[in-house]
């Protein structure tokens, strides 16, 4: 078996030339297809504009995300959940409590974190609120909050690895679950699965977005923190190669 260092990314000359040509061909084909597109097309702008009044929010992107195409967003939150579940499965654990913590930070970093982390929570909350009328919403807010979680962990604080298993799982699933609750309620009333009453649409969207923000933040932080190279006993004994 060759050692990992020996195998470099050296290419065999003829096949690499061929592959390069093939990829250039694909690029040209895609560009040709793009140029064929008509400049003005009947997209979904008109349709979204007509229904903005019933969406409960004032920003079209938020309206699409959380109302018109909420099903899509729901499943994307599900994809995030599956990514973190997959990672935990491969590592054979159900939470991050056994992960080794970073060493305690020097005073300057600690001071910076004390300054930055509350700011990040604040910015995240503002982004969430801003989704109603401007660019912003659950995904942006969640990523900022998740970055805050990673920052905390880098500075030696427990961050998401400090949550107990039950709390960790609750926070991971609360975003997906809030969509599920709305869908379940609607199915009970035999309505369309993610249909909000117009009068309460804004409130429902804000609640779902807040839950999704928490889930996205915990997911992103858990994915990054869970990937840290922590050598544990079960990592040291590789499975039998077949």
């Amino acid at each position: 078996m060759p050692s990992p260092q020996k195998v470099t990314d050296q290419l065999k000359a003829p096949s690499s030339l061929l592959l390069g040509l093939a990829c250039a061909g694909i690029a040209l084909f895609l560009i040709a297809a793009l140029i064929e597109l008509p400049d003005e097309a009947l997209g979904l702008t008109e349709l979204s504009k007509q229904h903005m009044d019933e969406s409960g929010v004032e920003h079209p992107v938020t309206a699409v995300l959380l109302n018109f195409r909420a099903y899509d967003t729901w499943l994307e939150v599900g994809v995030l959940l599956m990514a973190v579940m997959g990672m935990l499965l491969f590592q054979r654990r159900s939470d991050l409590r056994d992960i080794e913590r970073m060493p305690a930070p020097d005073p300057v970093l600690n001071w910076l974190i004390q300054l930055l982390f509350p700011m990040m929570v604040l910015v995240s909350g503002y982004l969430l609120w801003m989704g109603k009328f401007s660019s912003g919403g659950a995904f942006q807010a969640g990523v900022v909050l998740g970055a805050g979680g990673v920052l905390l962990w880098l500075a030696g604080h427990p961050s998401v690895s400090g949550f107990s298993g039950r709390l960790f799982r609750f926070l991971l699933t609360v975003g997906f679950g809030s969509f599920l609750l709305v869908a379940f309620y609607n199915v009970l009333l035999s309505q369309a699965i993610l249909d909000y009453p117009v009068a309460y649409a804004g409130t429902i969207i804000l609640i779902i977005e807040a839950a999704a923000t928490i889930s996205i933040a915990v997911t992103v932080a858990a994915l990054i923190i869970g990937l840290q190279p922590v050598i544990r006993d079960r990592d040291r004994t590789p499975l039998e190669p077949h």
Partner: protein
Amino acid sequence: MSQYLAYSITGMIIFALGLHGLVVLSHILRKIICINVMAGGVFLFLISVAARNFDEFPDPVPQAMLLTGVVVALSATAFAVALARRIYTVTGQAELIEEDEPS
């Protein structure tokens, strides 16, 4: 020729560059980075193509797809890295090479 086309074409070129890297490079981490480069091209395409249907606002549907796509790409990358680490733990190498001799 309209303005959005410049961005869309750039996006497609980035996509093809990433695709080339994905096929040619053998290290798993490089492949993961290439998939991210490809995703970058697709994102640039989506955000520029939203300008085609400009009324009071650009088409919100591609924008929404992009928004969720970025976060999903981030988590899928993290999952891919977890897989790559598992492959390295089990096999001791991080390259996908063609097997010349039977192992």
